[in-house]
């Protein structure tokens, strides 16, 4: 992942959005973090041909309108979008959610730590891994 690549966070909870921004800032993560508040908004952004596509999606599962699994199912059927890797970051440790998320080809499933310090450690590990990953050139 290049420093200028966009990371898309799909998350409805205001506190979690603030935590993510704070973690990115404190960890000096250079990538721009774009936030969409549910699956419907995120799909709209991805389908807008004038908007730059993200290199990575960090995805909550429990959201109003289009939830995380519905969002995954939809964009993974779209030939223009399905290459984009998604990492689930959620409070749900439900086995059924985990299985379904991997059925829809998520590239990781992380249970969101409640404590901010641990949350930051999780974001650091996610970033360190994807920083090393090669991604296709974004059209």
């Amino acid at each position, binding site marked *: 992942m290049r420093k200028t690549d966009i990371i898309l966070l799909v998350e409805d909870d205001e506190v979690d959005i603030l935590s993510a921004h704070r973690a990115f800032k404190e960890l000096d993560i250079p990538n721009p973090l774009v936030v969409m508040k549910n699956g419907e908004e995120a799909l709209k952004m991805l389908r807008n041909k004038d908007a730059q596509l993200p290199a990575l999606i960090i995805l909550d599962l429990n959201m109003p309108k289009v939830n995380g699994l519905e969002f995954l199912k939809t964009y993974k059927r779209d030939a223009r979008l399905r290459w984009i890797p998604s990492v689930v970051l959620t409070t749900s440790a439900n086995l059924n959610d985990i299985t379904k998320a991997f059925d829809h080809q998520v590239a990781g499933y992380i249970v969101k730590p409640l404590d901010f310090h641990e949350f930051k450690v999780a974001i650091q590990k996610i970033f*360190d891994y994807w920083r090393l990953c090669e991604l*296709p050139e974004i059209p």
Partner: protein
Amino acid sequence: MNSNNPILLVEDDQVDAMTVERAFRDLEINNELIHAVNGLDALDHLRDGSKEPSLILLDINMPRMNGIEFLRELKSNDRFKRIPVVVLTTSNDQKDKFETYDLGISGYMLKPIDYQAFVSLMREINNYWTLSEAPN
């Protein structure tokens, strides 16, 4: 790693396979490392193995069945399609990157030549897949 299940390495180069084994030892990753020498061999291991691997490390350029052909088989199989795959290759080809992500890989890493850099890479892979839940 997030489970005690084995890790399947699909790699035709004997030296590269030994480097992965050595890095596992140095990082004290205790999962059993199963070595398949190409895609066909890997499918045989998956079908015969008693324990499903928790992660597959996949080279691309291999004889008989290459990494992309293997991914197509794996991802169209309902029993195996959830197993996360990390590509570990020397190929910097855009087409390989696009095709493998399109098929649902969970990461694409270029093999460093330097051993210490290789160990660092394996450390990050291990950290990430320890943090992540396992699909099975």
